[in-house]
C-alpha cells in the first residue's frame, strides 16, 4: 500500500533520513523503532508532505505522492497524528474532530448553513469510539495530556483514512494510559480495517502489537521484518536492543 524507497532528507549538511526504505501492506500494523533522533518523525513528515525529500521515491497505492502538498496527500487516504499534541486548543473537542470530518466530506467551504447541523453524527460516532463523548463540549486545550493524545487520534480518524500514521501515540503517558491507548489502536485497526504505521519507544508494546517492525538508526533503515526476525537480528540486538531482548 505504502512504499518508501531510498528516501533521503538533509537539514544543512546533517542527514536526518538517509536512504530509508519502508513497506506497509494493507491491514498491517507497522512499527518504526529507533533511538531518539533516528529520524522517525522526519520520515513521517516526508511521507505526509510536511517535508520534501531530497532523493528517493514514495508511492501510495501505486501512485507517486512525493510532490503533493499535505492536504492532497491526506485526501488520498493518509491521516496522521503528531508526536507533540497538535490540536485546536481554543475549539471544543467536538469541533476539533468535526473540522476533519467536514474536510473529509468536502463540506468545509459551506457558507450559509449552520455548522452545528452538519457532520454531527459522524463526529459523535468517533468521539464515542475513542471514549471522549462525555468531554465533547470541553475546550480542547483544557483536556489532560492523555486525553489530548486521544483527541489527536480522533482528529485523524475524522478523515476516514485507509492508512493512519501515529507518531508516538503514547508519548508522555502513564503505563495504564499506554496500555489503554494501544488497545484502542488495535481495536480501531480491527473495527475499521485500518492500516497503521506508528512509532513507539516502549519495546514491549511494539513487539506485542506490531505485525512488522522497521528499525532505524542515524536515518538509515537497518532492517524491516516480522517481530521474530527483528528480534533475532544481530545488528539490532547490539545496536538498539542492547542485547537485552
Amino acid at each position: 500500500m505504502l512504499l518508501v524507497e531510498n528516501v533521503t532528507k538533509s537539514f544543512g549538511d546533517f542527514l536526518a533520513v538517509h536512504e530509508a526504505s519502508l513497506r506497509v501492506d494493507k491491514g498491517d500494523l507497522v512499527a518504526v523503532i529507533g533511538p531518539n533522533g533516528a529520524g522517525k518523525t522526519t520520515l513521517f513528515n516526508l511521507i505526509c508532505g510536511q517535508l520534501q525529500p531530497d532523493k528517493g521515491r514514495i508511492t501510495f497505492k501505486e501512485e507517486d505522492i512525493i510532490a503533493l502538498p499535505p492536504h492532497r496527500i491526506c485526501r488520498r487516504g493518509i491521516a496522521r497524528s503528531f508526536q507533540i499534541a497538535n490540536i485546536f486548543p481554543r475549539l471544543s473537542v467536538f469541533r476539533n474532530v468535526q473540522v476533519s470530518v467536514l474536510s473529509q466530506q468536502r463540506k468545509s467551504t459551506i457558507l450559509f448553513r449552520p455548522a452545528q447541523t452538519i457532520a454531527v453524527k459522524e463526529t459523535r460516532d468517533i468521539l464515542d469510539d475513542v471514549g471522549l463523548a462525555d468531554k465533547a463540549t470541553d475546550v480542547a486545550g483544557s483536556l489532560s495530556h492523555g486525553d489530548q493524545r486521544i483527541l489527536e487520534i480522533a482528529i485523524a480518524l475524522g478523515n476516514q483514512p485507509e492508512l493512519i500514521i501515529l507518531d508516538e501515540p503514547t508519548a508522555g503517558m502513564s503505563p495504564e494510559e499506554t496500555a489503554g491507548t494501544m488497545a484502542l489502536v488495535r481495536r480501531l485497526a480491527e473495527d475499521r480495517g485500518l492500516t497503521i504505521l506508528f512509532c513507539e519507544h516502549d519495546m514491549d508494546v511494539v513487539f506485542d502489537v506490531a505485525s512488522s517492525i522497521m528499525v532505524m538508526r542515524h536515518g538509515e533503515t537497518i532492517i524491516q521484518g516480522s517481530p521474530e526476525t527483528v528480534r533475532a537480528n544481530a545488528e539490532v540486538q547490539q545496536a538498539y536492543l542492547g542485547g537485552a531482548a
Partner: protein
Amino acid sequence: MRQAIINKNSLLVSAGILIVLACLPLVLPKFYVYVLALIFVTALLAMSLNMVVGHGGMYQFHHGVFYGIGAYTLALMLTKTSLPAWLGFAAAPVCSALAGVLIGLFCVRLTKLYFGMLQISLGSLVWAIAFRWYALTGGDDGIHGVPIPDGIASLIPSYYFILFLLAASLAVMYLILKSPFGNTLRAVRDNPERCEAVGINVRFHQLVAIAIATFFAGLAGTLFVVVEGSVFPDLLFWVLSLEVFIMCLLGGWFTFAGPVLGAAIIVALRTFAGVYTEYWTLILGVILILLIFFLPEGVMGFLEEKFKARTQTTSER
C-alpha cells in the same frame, strides 16, 4: 449541543438595539445622526476586517485600501459614467473583493508578520496610484460633490439606508462565521499545519475569507460616499488601516460584535475630542499600548470574560 444558531437573548437584544437606533433620528440633532451614520459605516469596515484578523488569524494590516477602492469605484461610476447608480453600489464591493484576492494571492504565501508587511507594501502601492493619478482620481484633492441618488441623498434617508445595510451585512457575516467555513477558518487560525494534515487547503480558505472581508470593506466604502459625498486618498492611507485594526483589538477580536463597539469608541473619540490633527496618530499609539497591556482581549472580550466567570460556561473562541 444542538441549539439554535443564535440564542433567544442575543436575538432580543439585537432587535432592541435595532429599534432604538431606528428611533434615534426622531429625537437626535442632525449632527449626532451624522456621527452615528459614520459610526455604522466604520463598524461595517471594522467587522469586515475582524473576519480575517480575529477569525482568520491573518495580519491584514492595510484593510483600509479595500474600503478606499469601494469608495472610489462608486464615486467614479457616479461622476464619470451615466450607468445606473445601483450598478455602482454592486460593482464597488466586487472590485474591492477582486483587489483583495489579487493582493491576497501574494500575501497568503507568507505567514504572520510577513503577511502583514507585504500587505502594507502592496496596499501603499494602491494608495500611491489614487494619490498620483490626477486625471482619474483627482489626486490628493479627491472627488467631491458625488451625485448621490435622490432617495438617499439627504441625511435621514441615508441614515436608514446605512443602518439597513449594516444590519443585513452583520447578519450575513454571523451566518458565515457559524458555518462550516467559519469553523474551519478558526481552525486554520489556530493551527494551519494541522489543518493541512486533515486535508484542508489552508491558502484557499484564507483567500475565501479575504474575498468576503474585502467585499464588505468595499460595501462600507460605498456607504462612506453616501454619508460624505466625496472621496480622497486618505481613505486608503495606512493611518486609517491602523485605526480600523485598533478598533478590532479594542472591541475584542475574539468576539462577534466587538469591532462595532471599537468603531463606536474610536469614531466618537475622533469626532468629539476634535483632534483630527497630527496628534491623532499619537493618541492612537497610546490607545494601542494601553490595550496591549491592560485589555488584550478587548472591551467586549473583557466583559464576556467577566460574565462567564459568573455563569460558569465553557467557551470557545
